[in-house]
Every structure is written in C-alpha cells, then in structure tokens.
C-alpha cells in the first residue's frame, strides 16, 4: 500500500513538471519573439521601453517573490502537519497575487490612457517597432496575468481542501503541485521584469 502511494506521488510530480515544461516553452516562444524584434528594431524598442513604469514592475516583482516564499513555506508547513499555518500562508499567497493584479490594472490603465495600445492613433502614425513592443508587452504580461488568475483559483481550491481535511501531512501532493505551478508564475515574471522594464 505504501509503495503504491509512493508511485502515485512520483507520477503526480512527474505530471506537473511535464506541464510546467510546456509552459516554459510557451513563454520561451514569446521571449524569442521579443529577442528577434529587439534585434530588428533596437531604436524603437528603446524609445517604447522608456515609457514603462519601473515602480509598478519592481513592486510586482517583490510581491511575486514574496508570494512564492509563502507558497514554499506552506509546503513545509503541511509536511509538518501545521494545518493552521498552511491556511494562513496560502491566504497570504493569494493576497499577494490579488495586489499584483490590482497593480497590473492601474499600470495598464495608465498606459492605455497615454495612448499606448494596439492600433492607437499614436502607433498608427509612428514607426512599427514601438507598436510591436507594446503588442508583445500586452500579450506577454496578459498571458502571465491569466496564469496569476488561474493560480489564485487553484490555491483557493487547495486551501478549501486543506480546511476540509482532504489535504494533510499524509497526502499533500495537490498542495505541492499547486505551489510548483505558482513558482512557475514567479519564474516567468523573473524574466519578464528585466526584459520589459530594465534592459531598454
């Protein structure tokens, strides 16, 4: 019985990692697009990149890194059977994720307000490189934002299961896999942040 449980656990871990690898390749494709457009339109990218809000980018980086810490700690907590702590840590992770999304809302609103959006009058008149930068920016951070939203949903379901007692020190692979997914969301942002906010 123990052996069978161990195999199921190993299988579940392998499954989530295979999924995460496909996610890495998905965002890898978007980073490849960024790199090729940057090499084709270096001057336009530099001008467009200067319009980014470094403050929002840095705040969101700190939020995601911190939420990742809480998620990692929640795995340690469940392994040690500290259920109360697991719930608090998952709650803190979810709150960080929500603040991240609220920041994103204000950031995008400000950018759209300044006339940076696909097919805006500003971009139709200007060189194509700037429009490409912002299209790619909205696509990449938008897709990442969906992942944050999915992570919030997933972690909420996990927290409810922990409270019901369905996840505990003897069986916590769902919590561990959801935390892995959450770390991936953090990992992708670790690359989005320098590429869009810093290097230009």
């Amino acid at each position: 019985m123990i052996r069978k449980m161990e195999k199921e656990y190993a299988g579940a871990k392998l499954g989530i990692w295979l999924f995460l690898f496909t996610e890495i390749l998905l965002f890898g494709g978007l980073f490849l697009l960024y790199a090729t457009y940057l090499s084709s339109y270096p001057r336009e990218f530099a001008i467009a990149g200067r319009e980014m809000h470094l403050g929002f980018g840095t705040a969101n980086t700190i939020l995601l890194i911190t939420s990742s810490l809480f998620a990692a700690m929640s795995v340690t907590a469940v392994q040690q059977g500290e259920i109360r702590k697991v719930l608090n840590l998952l709650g803190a992770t979810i709150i960080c994720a929500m603040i991240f999304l609220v920041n994103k809302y204000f950031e995008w609103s400000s950018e759209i307000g300044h006339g940076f959006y696909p097919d805006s009058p500003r971009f139709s008149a200007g060189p194509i490189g700037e429009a490409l930068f912002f299209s790619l920016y909205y696509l990449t951070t938008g897709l990442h934002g969906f992942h944050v939203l999915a992570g919030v949903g997933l972690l909420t379901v996990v927290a409810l299961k922990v409270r019901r007692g369905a996840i505990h020190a003897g069986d916590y692979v769902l919590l561990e896999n959801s935390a892995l997914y959450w770390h991936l969301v953090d990992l992708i942002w670790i690359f989005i942040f320098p590429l869009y906010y810093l290097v230009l």
Partner: protein
Amino acid sequence: MADIEKDSHHIIRYPKLVMVWVFLLLLTGLTVWVSRLDLGVLHVWGSLAIAVMKAFLVIAFFMHMRYEGRLLRGLLLLTLVTLAIFIGFTFFDLSYR
C-alpha cells in the same frame, strides 16, 4: 537548520526558505541598480545573468529541484536545451541574413 528527510520526502526548514527569499530580494535590488548604470549592450547580458541566478534559486529551493531524482533533473535540462536550441538557431538565421 538541517533539513529533514521523511519517507523519501524532503522537508526544507523555514529559515532556509527565508534566506533564499532574502537573496532573491537582493538580486532584484542589484538588477534595478545595474539597469541605471550606463553599460550599453552589457545591460541585456547583465540583467539576464541576474535573472538566471534568481531562476536557479527559485527552481533549486522553492521548487525542491535540488532534492529531486535524476528523472526530473534530466527533463528540466532537456527543456532548457530545447529552448536554447530554438532561440540560438533563430539567431543563426537572423544574424547571417
């Protein structure tokens, strides 16, 4: 601060996780500071190098990869090599057009 082994599951202690978090914050500060310096094209490589260090910390400790077996490590390597090939080969094409 020694970690605990329990039925082949590795438990990472809280202080170690907090230490990884502190390093991640320091690297974030470093990368923002570096971006303000006038380095030209070195910006891109410097920022990417710091991002890779941060990614390593997250994967190794937060994602427990340091304590996983050969299968998962091998698959991670395979994924990164695949990514490197498709980014690298695209640039072979772009650079020599």
